[in-house]
């Protein structure tokens, strides 16, 4: 029996809001234009990550695709990432296009803006998914058949939406309280769906690479290809057909720096795994079709792939985050009616989930992760800049109404 690993990598960079003050509102509309070389400077961040992660990892993936006919990978690439790559590193897009052309790279659908629109506005959610599909079609000549929501935020309703929209596959976290005695290493049927199948992240094996790999305090440090291969073997024991490794693309080179040995680890692991005849890699849609669902899974409450709670509290956990989203989506109808593409684009860029993530105030271990990723001095600063930008959006709407553009 064939045993397959589903490697799925997520590629995203937000348009970070600059230190946008009360005094900028109604004057400057350049919310995303920090050019101070800080970690609010989108171009500086992008170029840094391009050199540390996107280029070297793309090189490695291309090599592996060339070297191993059974190697496959799935990618979700946000629209806001594509915008930035087109502006500052078009070579990376060209490289991705070459990879997709091999037929062994699947692109996963999602919202163009990496937003939480699903939880606020079905209309806007659908529009953002369509925008993403259009962009992927333009750039890669490709129609996705699998769907992932921002931050893997998943519930039964989402699965039913994907089912109705014709997706064959949907991705979610394989979270123990939901799975109970069940294993994430099988294909499942989402509750209430006819055709869409559900793949669940094996978070232990994923996080060994994504979070723990370079951690010298980890009992298993250092992790090499042989050891990881043994763990993988163990996961397949009892006839499990697949293991789903879902992680951020930036794991390679950015979250785990090159000097941790992450690239050569991965290169060796792929060779090690494919050395056995019955082993292979799947893209997500292949994986979902590789065997029949073993059962139905229901997640009435939203599950994400973040933090120890696996819920939305990193994005919608405190009142600042709720206020920010409430006021953002309150403007939706007016923004759409304006017909002003620049304004609509700016508003949508503010819907990117990272903005509320930067307002997170959970100061546990997870909070450290948040602080590491935040471009601001504090969540409160992030909130103020966001609200000032939102007021400016409203100001621009008022200008529209009064015709004084």
């Amino acid at each position, binding site marked *: 029996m064939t045993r397959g690993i589903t490697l799925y990598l997520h590629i995203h960079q937000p348009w970070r809001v600059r230190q946008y003050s*009360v005094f900028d509102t109604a004057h400057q509309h350049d919310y995303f234009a920090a050019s101070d070389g800080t970690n609010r400077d989108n171009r500086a961040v992008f170029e840094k990550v391009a050199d540390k992660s996107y280029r070297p990892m793309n090189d490695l993936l291309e090599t592996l695709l060339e070297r191993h006919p059974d190697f496959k990978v799935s990618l979700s690439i946000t629209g806001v990432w594509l915008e930035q790559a087109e502006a500052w590193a078009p070579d990376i897009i060209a490289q991705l296009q070459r990879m997709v052309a091999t037929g062994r790279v699947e692109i996963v659908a999602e919202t163009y803006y990496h937003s939480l629109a699903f939880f606020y506005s079905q209309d806007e959610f659908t529009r953002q998914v369509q925008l993403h599909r259009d962009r992927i079609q333009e750039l890669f000549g490709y129609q996705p058949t699998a769907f992932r929501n921002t931050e893997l935020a998943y519930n039964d309703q989402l699965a039913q939406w994907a089912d109705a929209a014709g997706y064959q596959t949907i991705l979610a976290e394989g979270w123990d309280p939901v799975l109970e005695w069940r294993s994430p290493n099988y294909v499942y049927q989402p509750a209430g769906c006819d055709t869409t199948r559900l793949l669940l992240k094996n978070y232990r094996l994923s996080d060994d690479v994504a979070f723990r790999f370079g951690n010298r305090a980890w009992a298993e440090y250092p992790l090499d290809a042989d050891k990881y291969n043994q763990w993988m073997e163990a996961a397949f024991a009892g006839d499990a057909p697949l293991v789903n490794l879902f992680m951020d693309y930036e794991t390679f080179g950015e979250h785990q720096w090159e000097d941790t040995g992450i690239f050569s680890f991965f290169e060796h692991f792929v060779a090690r795994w494919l050395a056995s005849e019955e082993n292979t890699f799947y893209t997500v849609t292949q994986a979902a079709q590789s065997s029949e669902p073993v059962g139905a899974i229901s997640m009435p409450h939203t599950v994400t792939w973040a933090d120890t709670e696996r819920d939305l509290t990193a994005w919608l956990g*405190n009142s600042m985050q709720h206020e920010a989203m409430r006021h953002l989506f309150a403007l939706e109808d007016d923004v759409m009616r304006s017909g002003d593409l620049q304004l609509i684009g700016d508003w949508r860029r503010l819907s990117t989930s990272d903005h509320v993530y930067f307002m997170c105030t959970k100061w546990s271990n997870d909070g450290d992760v948040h602080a590491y990723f935040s471009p601001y001095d504090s969540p409160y600063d992030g909130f103020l800049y966001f609200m000032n930008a939102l007021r400016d959006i409203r100001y621009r709407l008022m200008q529209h109404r009064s015709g004084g553009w």
Partner: protein
Amino acid sequence: MKLLMLGWELPPHNSGGLGVACYHMAKALSDNGVDIDFVLPYSAEHPASEWMRVHASTDVRPRQRAESTLAYTASVGELRKIQAQYIDYVAQLVEDSPPDVIHAHDWLTMEAGMRAKEVSDAPLIVHVHATEFDRSASDNGNPLIHDIEYNGLMMADRIFAVSGITKSIIVQKYGIPADKIEVVHNAVDVSSFVEHEYDRATYRYIEHLRDEGHLVVSVLTRLTVQKGLTHFVRAAARASERYDRMVFLIAGDGEQRDELIALSAELGIADKVYFTGFIRGKQWRDAYSLSDVFVMSSVSEPFGLTALEAAHHDTALIISKQSGVGEVLSHILRYDYWDIDRLADQLVGIATSPALQSSLRIGVHNEYARLSWHDVAQRCLSHYDNLRHGVPA
């Protein structure tokens, strides 16, 4: 008459109202012929103070000094070093050139004042702009500072308190006899307000809301617990429930900022509350001009000069009963700092009654300018004379 005035800051190197008050008081005294030595704890140019002898008692630069003063509640270390040098300098100064009267401002200079009195035998006036009870907004201030204040108040020949509120704190908390304390309210120097052309563009978005009928309610202050701002934000939320067209400008910075941001989000009014961060100059002055209502929400405010500045800018004033400036104004609304229902009522009242709003504005505008530093100087002079000639006040 030769006056030794002991201060901690003067414009343009001031971090707050103390420097402003000292400057105008000294200027008015100088205009009345008093010969003044003014000692500072730092070294810098004071181009506008050439009519008196300004002494730098240390070679610390003003910026460092401001930081160590701000830090005093946490760690007194750096500040104590500067104070020690200040005291030595003052001791030498009075030995070389003995004063007729010593006038020391706040606890920061009280030890130097006592030392100067010891060396020169001149009478000492301790002028209280704020006590440690005010600064800490509790009974649990820094015990060292409490000790210094107590000793200074005991040793002083006469105490000036900046308001009746401050006087009663001195009597109640330090047990000083009331008849040793004179209330000397601050005043306002209208000519010192930089004539400025209000620029509607500075707060363009809020001006836009104002044009659409929103009432702009402002606090301009340090965001510290002493200022009672959590009560203000709660009152803002309550008022917003009843009258939607209001926005709240919170101008300034301080350790309570994050708490206030979170609170306004929690109360669902984050979109109505505008945080400017630290501002000065034009943005500061424009904030007054933008405001329809200025609120002083302090839990404990010995005086509160900014209220007079707001009055100058044609603003209606709501002043907590715990703020001294309320003692010298009558065309204002007052409330207990904790009484959020009352403040909310007053805000809604002003928002819904143009007549109330304009009578408050006009009333206080006609009234504030009568508070003159010249009168303050006259009162100081009469107390100096009494002390020098041994006549009981």
